[in-house]
């Protein structure tokens, strides 16, 4: 176990950035908890009024001026409002004008907070050209994503999840000889995938778990493809909507590349409501186990 949580890592990165002349913009930044203790009480923080579209435009303009702003979006659902300046301006700038507006969007996801505070929308930004999209869940992953951002001139969507903020552990891939299935997990489902692998093991299923941090560009490296070639069955798990989402997109890429069946598992195609049982929560360990067993059964490999 490491010594720093993800939240502490974000806070330290941010403090250094602000002290070095960078900027941070967002709504209600200094409100209760300073965005889950991820923002330091430092200079160069701009409290935006509740103007979600213009606020994103102001952040993009700050990026255009070279200040490498961190734009904090407290709930990813709000990206629908923030999206216009990000998608239509920041992401198109290089393709149209060979200029850049490298804004670092901290898009924070949560669970169980109802229809417009529990969304995971990174898939939307994978769809549009011009973005880099990553979903770090560990301190080192966050540092890596930040380093790549600082070396890049692209707008970044950093798909964070509150479930990761207290995490101190690095999450390594779990690869075993003769695995029956490979689970590819994204964002907070990575924590559940590890639990699922243990549950599957108890039932005699040997299960690889491969972590996906970079959603765009998503590169089919050997780290990604080799476990699938061994297990011959894959399952991509994402806390966003399954239809036309990250899980389906990545599953498709892997199937085309390897020729092996890969299923997508994400949210069902219905609204996330506030109260159980209508929350339409992200796949937990139980659902991942269930989906894995269905896949294996479909391939004629039945486990109890």
């Amino acid at each position: 176990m490491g010594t720093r949580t993800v939240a502490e890592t974000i806070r330290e990165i941010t403090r250094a950035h602000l002290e070095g002349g960078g900027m941070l913009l967002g709504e209600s930044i200094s409100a209760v908890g300073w965005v889950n203790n991820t923002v330091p009480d430092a200079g160069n923080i701009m409290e935006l009024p509740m103007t979600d579209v213009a606020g994103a435009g102001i952040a993009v303009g700050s990026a255009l001026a070279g200040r490498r702003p961190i734009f904090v979006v407290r709930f990813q659902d709000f990206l629908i409002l923030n999206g216009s300046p990000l998608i239509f301006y920041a992401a198109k700038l290089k393709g149209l004008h060979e200029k850049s507006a490298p804004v670092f969007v901290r898009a924070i996801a949560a669970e169980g907070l109802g229809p417009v505070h529990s969304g995971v929308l990174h898939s939307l930004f994978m769809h549009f050209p011009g973005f880099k999209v990553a979903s770090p869940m560990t301190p080192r992953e966050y540092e890596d994503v930040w380093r790549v951002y600082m070396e890049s001139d692209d707008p970044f969507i950093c798909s964070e999840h509150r479930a990761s903020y207290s995490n101190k552990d690095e999450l390594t891939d779990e690869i075993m000889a003769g695995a029956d299935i490979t689970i590819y997990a994204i964002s907070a489902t990575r924590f559940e995938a590890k639990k699922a692998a243990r549950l599957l093991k108890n039932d005699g299923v040997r299960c690889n778990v491969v972590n996906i941090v970079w959603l765009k560009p998503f590169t089919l490296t050997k780290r990604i493809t080799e476990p699938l070639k061994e297990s011959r069955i894959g399952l991509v798990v994402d806390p966003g909507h399954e239809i036309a989402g990250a899980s389906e997109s990545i599953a498709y890429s892997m199937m085309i590349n390897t020729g092996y069946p890969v299923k997508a598992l994400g949210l069902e195609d219905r609204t996330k409501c506030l109260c159980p049982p209508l929350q339409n929560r992200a796949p937990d360990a139980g659902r991942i186990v269930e989906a894995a067993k269905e896949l294996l059964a479909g391939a004629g490999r039945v486990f109890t």
Partner: protein
Amino acid sequence: MRVPDLAVIENGAAIVPEDIALEIYRRICRTRTFEEGLIKAVKDGFVTSPVYLSSGQESIAAALSVAVPGPVIFAQHRCHGVYLSYGGDPVKLRDELMGLPTGTSGGRAGSNCIQCHENGVVMHGHHGLIGENVPIAVGYALASKKSTLAIFGDGAAEEDYVLSSLGFAATHRLPVLFVCEDNNLSILTAVETRRSWKVSKVAAAFGMEAVDLSDDPWTIFLKAKELVKKTPALMNIHTCRANWHVGIGTDGPVEWDRFLDVRNALKGAGLWDKAQKIEEAERFCMEKVWEQGQLRRLSGK
């Protein structure tokens, strides 16, 4: 009520120094004669992508560019006049409109997305979403503290994010001069059909100085020089576009013909002989830009 002399300073052409009056006219002619060549190039099939003409409105950019030199510019879709008045190379603009790699954005962006980053001009390209440039201009001013010019139309002024940006600029006293080129039309729908309020009143309520005036260039010059020292500030300038929202067609006579009015004003100020020579020189220059043989070579037609 739209009138050509709203808040206009009488005999402005005679009040401003002669060299200023003639320089503004030169820049007006630059846009007008460039677009005369462009209209012919569209008719002849050398330019096939959509064009957003500044003709009819060119006095605004011409006057602003003399009154407020060197700002970071965020223009709107109707931006040929801004680009040319501030010193953009007409050949690069032509090439952009023809989709050539030697264009202002390598031929990728087109008429409503013109940028300029040379000869001391910093003009960031629009992407075609009306008013998108306004919050970005405000963010740029916030981050850089540089004098910034945000130009948009009366339609864009209705976008919620434009109004929010005015409020943010007022709150933080940012160095942005907002200029609304109010041609009264969103495509063909008039302002009075769309809203009951004035953007100048909204800006004033946010706490910035704001004025309504018509597009007399001498008045714009004098007022812009004053307001740029008091930013954030807003100028809502009534003007008449000569052509369609997009394309080279016309919808009949305009409410007023500022180009003709400017000529008459220069005659009244005793500057017509000099002005005529300026116009001829600009026309000669632009005829070279749009020379047919050259267009055939460039377009391969």
